[in-house]
């Protein structure tokens, strides 16, 4: 049989787009961008992290336009990002200058400054709160007024605390290897496609913008035995980090001349992983290595899972899929994975007809031989 090329569907597509708008509007309710931004913190953080673009307003707009579909919202934000010029690279951000809002350690009970729970759902009962169905603006105002009054009006100290890293103390004690400051300019996966073996900077950039579900699943797989990493969380911290850029067209390297441009919220994790090292070819020493996880916004599960995968990928010698950088890095990006999966529903008439032809041919052959 011959193949017939077809075209068409323009009118159907236009009608379909109209139908999509109808589905979004038929409830006759308007959701404000401000409402999404004020009430959907977790969703916004996830969209920004997976899109690799920090802008809460646009993330809220993407969520509205996508009717809450994560993959669509991430796609929209990533596409928008590609329309904007890159004006600057920041000065190196060091997280010891973070304004910490939450900070916990699973390795030490007592850490300097203490364990700060901040705002977390970790200790909630996970029972649906049916009172929220009837929540009113007045009730919100009342709750906030009561909360303000509960707070102590006095400042207990004149000091603002910048919490040191738990890992720094362990390094001082010689329990962890002290790595020299490495100022090798990092690679950028948005400028040059991944090639293998990937550099550490490419691995971290790919992991931090990975889809939350995919990163979590692969991290979990490693814990369950499809990998060799089972860490103890040294520190999870959530907070705001300041961003600075160097003045363009000025020769000075004095950082006091930098522009402060604002701050972004991040989650950062250091996981401690015991490893056996053989130094004298006789004795096996037990040491700790660190897995590093980080992402935009507050998304602790993703950051912890990333720290596991970071450590896995540092040890490619292990024969598990979670230690294979090609397997991990090429399958965790939201736009790439959802894009490729969903392309399967687009017309494949020609390729499928070709497959049908092959099957018909084989069947015919079988029938002929059977006679």
């Amino acid at each position, binding site marked *: 049989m011959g193949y017939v090329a077809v075209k068409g569907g323009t009118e159907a597509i236009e009608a379909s787009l109209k139908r999509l708008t109808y589905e979004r509007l038929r409830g006759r309710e308007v959701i404000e961008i401000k409402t999404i931004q004020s009430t959907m913190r977790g969703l916004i953080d996830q969209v920004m992290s997976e899109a*690799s*673009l*920090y*802008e809460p*307003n646009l993330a809220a707009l993407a969520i509205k336009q996508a009717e809450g579909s994560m993959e669509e919202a991430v796609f929209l934000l990533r596409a928008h*990002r590609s329309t*904007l*010029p*890159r*004006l600057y*690279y*920041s*000065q*190196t*951000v060091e*997280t*010891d200058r973070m304004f910490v809002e939450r900070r916990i350690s699973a390795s030490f009970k*007592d850490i*300097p400054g*203490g*364990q*700060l729970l*901040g*705002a977390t759902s970790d200790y909630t009962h996970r029972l649906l709160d049916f009172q929220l169905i009837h929540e009113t603006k007045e009730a919100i105002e009342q709750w906030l007024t009561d909360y303000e009054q509960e*707070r*102590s009006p006095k*400042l207990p100290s*004149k000091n*603002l*605390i*910048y*919490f*040191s890293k738990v890992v720094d*103390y362990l390094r001082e004690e010689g329990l962890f290897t002290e*790595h020299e*400051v*490495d100022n*090798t300019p*990092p690679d950028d996966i*948005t400028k040059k496609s991944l090639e293998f073996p990937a550099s*550490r900077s490419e691995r971290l*950039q790919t992991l931090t*913008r990975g889809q939350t579900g995919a990163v979590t699943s692969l991290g979990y797989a490693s814990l369950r035995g499809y990998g060799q990493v089972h860490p103890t969380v040294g520190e999870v911290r959530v907070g705001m980090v300041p961003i600075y*850029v160097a003045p363009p067209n000025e020769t000075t390297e004095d950082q*006091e*001349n*930098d*522009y*402060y441009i*604002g*701050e*972004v919220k*991040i989650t*950062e994790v*250091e996981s401690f992983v015991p490893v056996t090292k053989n130094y004298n070819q006789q004795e096996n020493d037990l040491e700790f290595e*660190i*897995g*590093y996880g980080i992402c*935009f916004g507050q998304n602790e599960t993703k950051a912890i899972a990333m720290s596991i995968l*970071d450590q896995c990928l540092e040890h490619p010698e292990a024969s598990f899929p979670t230690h294979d950088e090609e397997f991990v890095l090429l399958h965790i990006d939201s736009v790439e994975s959802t894009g490729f999966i969903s392309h399967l529903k687009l017309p494949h008439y020609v390729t499928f007809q070709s497959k049908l032809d092959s099957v018909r041919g084989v069947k015919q052959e079988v029938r002929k031989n059977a006679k």
Partner: protein
Amino acid sequence: MVTWRQVTMNLEGGRGMMNRRRRTEILIQGNSDLAREFAEHIMEHYPYREVMSPRYGLTMIKMRETAKNSLFHLGEVLVTEAKVEIKQQIGIGIVIGMKEELAKHLAIIDSAFKANLKETKEWEERLLEEEESILTEKIKKQTELLETRVQFETMDM
């Protein structure tokens, strides 16, 4: 034995140099009325040229990770940038988010400092006051957060 220490910043931090880093921290973290007031004063009293109207763009965040001490790119943040010229000095305003007005005001203030206008000396006191107010607010917020600090008790078994 592990020894713990922590870095602090206090309200008696002193006056020091009002360099660009410190100035932009105050103008962006503080009340945006301050930047508006400074910029409007300059616009009223000096001729200025808008070299670049506020535009949106990206800044790639470069980070140091704490496992191997190496550098990598965390992702991009949307910024608004503006450029203004006063007395042959081009000032730049850059701020995270979609903030056209603030970016322009920051550019005017930046060029005012570059051109060494006399007003910039008069601003110092206001900037220091705002800085103290920002720090007080931060300490207040931190005090509230410290209410969520865990007090462990060892149980008798």
